[in-house]
């Protein structure tokens, strides 16, 4: 079937259809309405509709939410008998799947792009290509969850390094100004890269980073997104400093080892969660002197949760 995109329904499509259920009622809907319905299914279910009939074969390629959820495969990987070679086979299958889907995908806009699978830095070429694809399509929500919780911990040196250079490439500016949410797990993303996002994504509301080995400091200062409402950082063991100044931040969650916090003029901050667990000992990892210094800037704090 030729890929065809009808932008609106002609009157002819509506008339003369009788009411029997044997008539293809859903097929009478124009493509854009069907794509709208498909984007409410899981991405896999949307792709699976390609087998219904030739009319449906390429409809899913216009869905703007690309959720590459490798959950089922991860469950296989987490089973007891899983070997390294089975893991690598599942990894290759996942990568092939994403590559294949992106080769067919047809929408110039990607609202949401989510990668959820156990992938290490040896897949950097593919992952880099996926990120370029998403960032070139006015992406709003980016999630890179390269989890290592299923097969076994990898360590920072095996984590994928986020390609900061890609963002700075001047000759090929990337349209990242629509980004509203960024979540990364088991990705080595640096403070520099995050600060680049913060300064170049005026709509950025939500930033969440966990298990980055390259994050040593994060400065959210004037020039950063004024839209930022939620910041979450967890288990970044090389992190030493988080500095937040002149920000509209509402919620800040931190979990990890003891670090320096510097908060100044954060008048909308109403929820703050600070906690950490090191080794087998539960202990408060908070500098109380520093805390007493910052409290005057947090007059409206509703929730302070130390765990």
């Amino acid at each position: 079937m030729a890929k065809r995109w009808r932008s609106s329904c002609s009157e002819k499509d509506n008339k003369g259809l009788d009411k029997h259920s044997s008539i293809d009622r859903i097929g009478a809907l124009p493509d854009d309405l069907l794509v709208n319905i498909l984007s409410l299914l899981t991405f896999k279910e949307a792709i699976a509709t390609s087998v219904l009939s030739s009319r449906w074969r390429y409809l899913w390629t216009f869905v703007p939410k690309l959720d590459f959820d490798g959950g089922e495969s991860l469950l296989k990987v987490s089973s007891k008998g899983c070997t390294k070679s089975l893991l690598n086979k599942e990894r290759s299958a996942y990568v092939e799947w994403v590559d294949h889907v992106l080769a067919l995908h047809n929408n110039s806009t990607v609202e949401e792009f989510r990668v959820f699978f156990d992938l290490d830095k040896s897949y950097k070429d593919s992952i880099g290509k996926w990120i370029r694809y998403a960032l070139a399509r006015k992406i709003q929500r980016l999630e890179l969850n390269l989890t290592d919780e299923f097969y076994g911990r990898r360590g920072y040196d095996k984590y994928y390094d986020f390609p900061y250079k890609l963002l700075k490439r001047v000759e090929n500016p990337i349209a990242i100004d629509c980004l509203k949410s960024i979540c990364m797990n088991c990705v080595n993303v640096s403070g520099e890269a995050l600060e680049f996002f913060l300064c170049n994504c005026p709509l950025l509301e939500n930033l969440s980073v966990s298990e980055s080995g390259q994050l040593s400091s994060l400065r959210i200062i004037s020039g950063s997104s004024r839209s930022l409402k939620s910041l979450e950082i967890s288990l970044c063991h090389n992190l030493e400093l988080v500095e937040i100044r002149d920000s509209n931040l509402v919620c800040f969650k931190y979990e990890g080892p003891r670090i320096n916090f510097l908060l100044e003029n954060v008048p909308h901050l109403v929820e703050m969660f600070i906690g950490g667990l090191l080794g087998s000992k539960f202990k408060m990892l908070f500098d109380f002197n520093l805390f007493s210094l910052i409290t005057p800037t947090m007059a409206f704090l509703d929730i302070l949760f130390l765990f």
Partner: protein
Amino acid sequence: MAAETGTPTTLTLKSNDDELFSVAESAAILSVTIRNMVEDGCAGGVIPLDNVDGKTLASVITYMNGISAIPADEEKKKSYRDKFLSDKDFETLADMVLAANYLNMSCLMDAVSAKIAQVMEKKSVGWVRRKFGIENDYTPEEEAAVKEEHKWTFEGVETDDDN
């Protein structure tokens, strides 16, 4: 627009099978298409809605009246929408999504689309084809090729009914 004082303005809508309906302007302007006509001053007489039949328009007007009577409470609106759509068969839903699109009513359109998606969720290909009257025009070889093309996808899709 609605008069500043006095009785609320009523509009007359005409379906494509020539049925006439009276509806309060305050409810009808949930449709951006109708609102634009009102704002442009084209709503004086009868408003013809060429893409909506009488049965569907009656349903849409019930929705317009119901939802506009609820104050700004998103929870209550959602529960009204769920109840309103709960007894609609698929043919009606398909007509309503077309009408909502034509009338430019995003809240109704989103709710009906979500309802149709809900019907499709976790169902086998055979079930969806039967339910929606979709004719399979693939040859067995073509169908096998499409399944092979998306092998990884089909592995992960669970279905309630595989007949």
